[in-house]
């Protein structure tokens, strides 16, 4: 990193509070995200209304007492489950779009660039929208590989915990533990452990993405190691993105649960819909906040040494190739001996 750009690096060790303020172009970024999301969800909304409309034509559902009895609700879920393939497809598409938006936004939220603009009043830069599209596309493939990397880690964690659950449950049963311990306490603890891991992995994903975009890195596993070294320098702050996202998801789940439990009609339904829209706006703002804070964190003084870590491949493939060649050579040498 050059000295010129260091002049614009964040001076303080505060990252999350300064990131709360809306930077120039922040509204554009958030607006694009909300718009894309709304457009993406439109087919789902139309399909959902079609399915729910068909349900609402059946007196079994339409005349049931509110809140819907368990069996009626179960039948409704069974019918609504026809939406699952669409939801899965849209979720995957959203994951790709999210990387595009994140790449562009992380690029736009470069603290050095924003500081430079603030000092020199340089407004001749490309617009936020153009950066979003151009830099988003430039980093898309790298960020998608980050998703794949984290998904692999998440899968391995889940498998590990699942095996652990089975093993611990066996041991607990053999030790004469109660049903409450095995059926309630143990699953609760394992769920907590899983959530803790998701907090770490979610944070890892975000910081890896921020570093990838900041330095233009392309080696995902090596960048993830840099992100982990950043964790050592900021043990608590590094975890904030995962924690915030988890809380956000929990809040969303609670809102949806409350919605279903109260089976609202009329104004109450409008209230829940408005609350959900508010939730989506909040989620978008938090997305912006966490991206900006991640960039600030990596641009901070304590991360200076990390920025010099080379983006070279580990050479695993080269090593394997070398080992294979070496083995072939030694084998041919030994057979050539008279």
């Amino acid at each position: 990193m050059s000295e010129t750009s260091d002049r614009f690096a964040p001076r303080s060790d505060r990252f999350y509070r300064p990131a709360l303020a809306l930077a120039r172009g922040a509204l554009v970024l958030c607006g694009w995200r909300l718009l894309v999301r709304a457009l993406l969800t439109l087919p789902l909304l139309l399909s959902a209304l079609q399915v729910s409309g068909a349900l609402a034509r059946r007196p079994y559902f339409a005349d049931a007492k509110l809140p819907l009895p368990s069996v009626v609700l179960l039948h409704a879920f069974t019918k609504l489950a026809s939406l699952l393939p669409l939801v899965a497809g849209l979720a995957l598409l959203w994951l790709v779009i999210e990387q595009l938006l994140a790449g562009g936004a992380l690029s736009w939220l470069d603290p050095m660039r924003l500081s430079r603009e603030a000092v020199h009043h340089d407004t001749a830069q490309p617009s936020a929208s153009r950066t979003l599209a151009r830099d988003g596309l430039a980093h898309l493939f790298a960020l998608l590989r980050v998703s794949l990397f984290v998904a692999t880690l998440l899968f391995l964690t889940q498998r590990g915990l699942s095996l652990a659950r089975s093993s611990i449950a066996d041991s607990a049963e053999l030790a004469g533990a109660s049903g409450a311990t095995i059926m309630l306490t143990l699953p609760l603890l394992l769920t907590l452990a899983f959530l803790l891991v998701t907090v770490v992995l979610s944070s890892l994903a975000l910081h890896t993405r921020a570093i990838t975009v900041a330095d233009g890195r392309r080696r995902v596993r090596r960048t993830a190691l840099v992100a982990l070294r950043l964790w050592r320098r900021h043990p608590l702050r590094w975890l904030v993105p995962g924690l915030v996202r988890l809380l956000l998801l929990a809040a969303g789940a609670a809102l949806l649960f409350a919605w279903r439990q109260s089976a609202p009609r009329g104004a109450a339904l409008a209230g829940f819909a408005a609350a959900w829209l508010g939730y989506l706006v909040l989620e978008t703002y938090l997305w912006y906040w966490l991206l900006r804070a991640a960039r600030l964190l990596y641009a901070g003084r304590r991360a200076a040494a990390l920025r010099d870590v080379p983006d070279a491949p580990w050479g695993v493939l080269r090593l394997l190739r070398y080992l294979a060649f070496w083995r072939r050579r030694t084998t041919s040498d030994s057979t050539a001996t008279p």
Partner: protein
Amino acid sequence: MRLDPKSRALEGTVHLRWRAPASAPAPIRRVPLHLYLNAFAHEQTTWMRESHRGFDIGEFLGRYPDPWGYSEPTAVRQRTRAGTLRAAMTYPIQPDDGNPLDRTLVEVMLVEPLAPGATLELVIDFKARLPIPIARTGGLDDYFLVAQWFPKLGAYDTRRQRFVARQFHGPTEFFADFADYDVSIDVPSGFLVGATGARVTPRKKPAPGRRLLRYRQRAVHDFAWVTGSALVAERHAHRPAGGGPTVNVRYIVPRGTAHQVTRWRRAVEGGLDVLSRRVGPYPYATLTVVAPPWRGRNTSGMEYPTLITAIVGDDLLDSFLLADNKVPEEVAIHELGHQYFYGLLASNEQVDAFLDEGFNSYWHVRTSLAVFGREIGHVLGRSLSSLTRMQAGLSRRVGAIREAVLRSPSNLFYPGTAVAHIYFRPALTLRTAERRFGRAAIDRVFSTYYARYAFGHPKPEDFLAVAREVGGEALEAFLREAFTRRDVPDFRVDAAKTARWRSPRGRFVVGGTTHTIKTDDSRDKRDTGLDRRAREKDGYVWVEVTDPGAVGLAGSVRWRRFKPRGDKRDSSRAAAKRESRARRYYESVVRLIGPGWKHLPVSVELRFDDGARVHDLWDGRATWRAYRVVRAARLAEVRIDRAGDIALDVDRTNNGWRRVPERGLKRDLGLWSTAIGQWLMTALGAWL
């Protein structure tokens, strides 16, 4: 009978006396013995192959490397006419499936043939080992449910004049003759014991470090006992409201869960009251209710004469999941009901399992409702009654059903449907019968059935005969059809539409006047050619009913008039507006699909926008039926079986149609499911 808890070993001697029926056509040369514990001897027994309730032996073996149990007669001797004991030969037989690895049934070749009316006396030394609880029996460390533990004589069917013993199968249970039991139990000191029957003074003193207990019970067809070092017991006497002796109920629960006895008491005492009033008095003076510890949960929910196991006794019952839920109590009520259907009526469960499980399931729903009212069963504040759970259970399996309930043996139902046939279908059939013929009629049928066949091993035909005699021909015809039909009935609205009635285009004559309607005219001359019945000047709604008929029943298209129920006048402002305009007529067409049963009529209701309701009772014999109505109001709703009388019709989602969807529900579920989709998208974005 001696139990060694460490090795789970049992050792004992059976002194068996059995009198051959005097009506037996020939001397008896062989008698069958059940060795039920051998079902748990290895993974290729018939029971294991049939894999009761999808039991995963691999996972179980991962936890318990040596869970196996077995039963083996070491010496079988017959007392001869000379009074001496002579060894008899035994050999395994597999009459049901020829599985050479199954030894749950052996045959004893008698040393001396047994003449009709003579008494057989066998002395059987045996050793056995209880399995780690896989299902229904077993134990480990400090808890043992010792059931199906002794070599047991197969039942003799006096109607067919032969033994009817079968191997032990996964989906079905037991069948045996009634007998008087006198059992001495030898366990380590410090072990609490509960057993079938009443405790009496033992014949001899126990060995040091041991306890010796003796139990006797007359007229039961099995004997089970429970023992453990971490169990406690409470005894409460209860006099059933419907009569019979005062029952000494002994509750045996794991130490630390004695406070849960109040739950079991409410269920058991309430159950005894209801069943004794509706079915008949419970004749025994004792009942033992066991709540197994968590490790013994595979022995929960079982019934033996005067001894039942409820769901587990565990802190889990005090948790937020089950503290206010009555499902555990319901299990206790179900097992209590078995005292009647399995214990006292004692039908052949291996052949006609539904006579026990199905009838008992019907009664456990009724009993639970009577004892707990609406508070039974809920999930997150939403009601989930036993009946709806049963309907949901049948609904899940309905696609796989291939057979009728009334077929035997009961272990050979299409894989995965045994529970539906044995439990749900008969219970829902009885529920349907109750709604159609009245609760009192069903009560009379059951009380007569019980009074006539207690200790009598009734068969399905016996029950149907009682139903005919007490409940009438229609009841018997319905039950017979429900038990013998392969399909589960499903009534549904196949099509429904309503549209503006228009004059028929073309040339036609009405009242001597010829009309020619062209395409452009049909809107203006909208009443021309309208059937005068559509104007309803007589106050009746005229409906064209198409019934295609069935085998032996001619089809027809008939106009029928119905006196509409409900207020035809709609007082709303919109209705007033409609009135002020010229009257418009609508043609509504409805097509319904039914199962085509002979004895399953169903009510059909058509509701119109003006509030008029037309009720028709469809005899249900044809497989479909159509209605066509032309009147001055649009069809608003069609309902089949609005009151839910046909409990057997488990898919009730298709029993109705509304022209206008319920907007609140449509928006609520539509927006909510979209929000769920968005939340999932957020989750994916957050984690990846």
